[in-house]
């Protein structure tokens, strides 16, 4: 795709004059997977058009690490809706630079759908992108957060935390036995106390997967 083509797609988004038109032009722009599209896709997150925002988030996730610095830079001072969508994009990308933001969102966002996706994102972090010395402290921080979040009042947030704890345990086995055993302890506790059947089943599945990993 030439630079001119991508400029045309960007202009089409800027000119969109109806919700449907916006959705369609954003989808086209997102599918181009072109770095030049990042700023426009981020802008769309603030338009209060859920369909277009979903398409923009998908586009940003596909662009991956390239979008991370721009997302982090633009996220402050944005309206709440835009920040929620940006959090989802960062959760999907999994770059460790977003760690602090995801921790904050998973613990404290008032919208359960944002806590849910931030919690999911914490299991999705690509630790290898951190300098060696920072890996263990960062993993410990993610683990502490997920243990807190696994006690969220909303079932779906606890469900997401369980998924991420399993992912984290998988990436920590066998190098970090202490952290892994903390996760196993938390899972065993959840098997005793969790009242929602679905969350309990998810924990049970995680435990099964982790057992088969060890043998």
């Amino acid at each position: 795709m030439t630079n001119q083509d991508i400029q045309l797609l960007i202009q089409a988004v800027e000119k969109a004059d109806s919700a449907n038109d916006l959705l369609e032009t954003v989808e086209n722009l997102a599918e181009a997977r072109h770095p030049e599209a990042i700023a426009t896709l981020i802008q769309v997150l603030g338009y209060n058009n859920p369909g277009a925002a979903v398409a923009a988030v998908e586009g940003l996730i596909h662009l991956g690490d390239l979008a991370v610095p721009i997302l982090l830079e633009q996220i402050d001072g944005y309206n709440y809706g835009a920040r929620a969508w940006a959090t989802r994009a960062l959760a999907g990308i999994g770059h460790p630079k977003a760690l602090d933001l995801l921790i904050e969102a998973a613990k404290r966002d008032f919208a359960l759908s944002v806590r849910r996706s931030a919690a999911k994102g914490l299991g999705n972090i690509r630790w290898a992108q951190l300098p060696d010395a920072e890996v263990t402290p960062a993993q410990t921080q993610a683990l502490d957060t997920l243990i807190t979040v696994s006690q969220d009042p909303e079932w779906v947030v606890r469900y997401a935390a369980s998924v991420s704890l399993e992912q984290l345990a998988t990436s920590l086995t066998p190098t970090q036995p202490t952290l892994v055993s903390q996760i196993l302890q938390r899972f065993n506790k959840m098997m005793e106390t969790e009242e929602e059947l679905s969350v309990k089943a998810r924990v049970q599945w995680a435990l099964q997967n982790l057992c088969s990993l060890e043998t």
Partner: protein
Amino acid sequence: MTDSQPFYEARLSAEDSPADDPAYTVEQALENLQQTADPSARYYAAWWIGRFRVNNPIAVEALLQALEDDSDRSPDGGYPLRRNAAKALGKLGDLRAFPALINALDCEDYYVRESVAQALEMLGDSRAIPPLVKLLEGGLEKAQQVPGKPHLVQPYEAILEALGTLQAREFVLLIEPFLDHFVEKVQYAAARAMYQLTGQAIYAERLVMALQGNDLQLRRSAMMDLGAIGYVNGAEAIANTLAENSLKLIALKGILEHHLTSQSLDLELSQESVRIMKLMDGLL
């Protein structure tokens, strides 16, 4: 208690609602429900008590009073407080409310009757079947729009759903014609009930088909129905339909839990359970 009870709870918490205001307490809710000077505070308190299942005798007593309230009237002559009181009584699951709810099934306000039918479904007492069936009298022919109103003569959707959940097997022939009602949501409610009463996949598949439709509201509705009846074979269609992930997750949770409760727990998870959880993981 019926299977659908936790499901309704989940449906409410699907919204990112600011109602989880920690400053609003049980004491305050009870106080607001018992007073009559501020109708809107009373209305909110009734909803809140249901939402957070404030299950105590004072709450039930105050809600029963609210169910007979004459002071809070909407411009069209309806009884907003009664509607909320009925819903809350359903959520509290206290059978002491049963006779009052049956009486309220005759209320002139359509929306009160609708809330009552939903509450009776949640209470799960099969003695509610005959009075609910009575509202289907006249069958499809009588199930018309009320002139000048946005609703039918009876809350057929809620009635059919309740009859399905309450296992009104002897009334299948009465329910079946509603599969052809001109309102799609009523068709779905009938399909849902027919599946619950007969266990035949053909009825659940009608709901799966509805997930391909063009109308978002109808897709949402069919999805929630599939969650409520726990139709395992509908899981993939739910994950793939065009709707919010929050609602898909709730529908899949309904299916998963339905499936889990029909299994003996503690054992190895079934393949179906794992399949559903994989779909759920992908929607987070």
